[in-house]
């Protein structure tokens, strides 16, 4: 029997903002939430570094530069509105990832080979 407290997903924030939060006027509503990804140097992947609020993509990138790259932490920035991110459910982690456990033959060390065999 599982018991859940309120579960809030990353993506929920954007939806709530679009719907308006409790009839407050526009100046009290948050700008949409954006997730920020930074490539720290050429040749590396963009990596999630955090999030921020911005009215549009251009502002999100400018703010990301000011907040997340004050010390030359990056050479390229991606931003995506948080509500567009779909995530796997942690409660299903067991069934999602477990099948990999019993397939050790996918690893090179599974195979018994003589020591004389080199360059392999």
């Amino acid at each position: 029997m599982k018991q859940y407290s309120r579960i809030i997903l990353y993506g929920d924030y954007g939806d709530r903002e679009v719907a308006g939060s409790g009839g407050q006027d526009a100046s009290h509503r948050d700008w949409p939430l954006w997730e920020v990804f930074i490539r720290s140097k050429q040749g590396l992947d963009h990596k999630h570094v955090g999030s921020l609020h911005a009215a549009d993509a251009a502002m999100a990138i400018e703010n990301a530069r000011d907040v997340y790259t004050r010390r030359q932490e990056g050479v390229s920035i991606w931003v995506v509105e948080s509500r567009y991110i779909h995530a796997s459910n942690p409660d299903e982690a067991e069934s999602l990832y477990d099948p990999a456990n019993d397939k050790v033959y996918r690893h090179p060390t599974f195979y018994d080979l003589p020591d004389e065999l080199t360059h392999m």
Partner: protein
Amino acid sequence: MNTESVAVTPEEHFQDKVNREVKIEPRDWMPEKYRQTLIRQISQHAHSEIVGMLPEGNWITRAPSLRRKATLIAKVQDEAGHGLYLYSAAETLGISRAEMIDQLHSGKAKYSSIFNYPTLNWADIGAIGWLVDGAAIMNQVPLCRTSYGPYARAMVRICKEESFHQRQGFEILLTLSKGTEAQRRMCQDAINRWWWPSIMMFGPSDDASPHTAQSMKWKIKRISNDELRQKFVDVIAEQVKILGMTLPDEALAWNEARGHYDFGTINWEEFWNVISGNGPCNRERIAARIAAHEEGAWVREAASAFAEKQRQRSGGKDEKAVA
């Protein structure tokens, strides 16, 4: 597999993860009290970063040289960034930014009481960097290992940036300590005024801190208030010698048996008084925050209106494909 026959409550499963040092992430199950405690602690921490810009911002225009001005601006800008990292971490727990800002403005949410003291002269900027940021670092380093993932990641980022703050503060005091008699007096005066408030920053002593036990069990908190305070006193009591200054505490003395410095009794009445809104600058700080928020309302509205117009013009097409 016989695990299915063992009934494990979500709470037990959660505590087991915490015990094994597995970080809790936003979408994982967590006790409601854990969520609430984190929201309170992280937002309070974020508010402190934001309000903390006010006493220092006070001296940007009057910094004694361009070098000092540039470093102070960089430091204050860092504090804004730290506030943002923390607000973002709190938002993953299901509270909106607007709600947190409202709680700060209404007085429902607290911030570190240290920022309710005034910065009277330039030496105060040095004392804040050395003592206030020093105490903050002492508090924050263990939080890099806190059990909630987004909070821990924000703290790692913050700690990397904080060490420049403390060094710039100490350098200001070091320069004053080598200056004229009047400058040396300024330096000592600032230390005298900031010392006690800065050791109050570690919060009430352990026996008066009702949440500590639960927070330690959940590994939100890793080291108790009194332990951190003692570490801080031990470090500062040595560093102050390099300045050729003293700490305003007659009871301060090395205790060979304990391997620590003994120090005097904190004026807890002052601490609670400042926390409950009666410090020298409480009203001024909140009034400044509210004014900044209200006077910036038209900017937020204009940006939203502009974004909406752009969206309509592009007819809902994606703005630009990522290369």
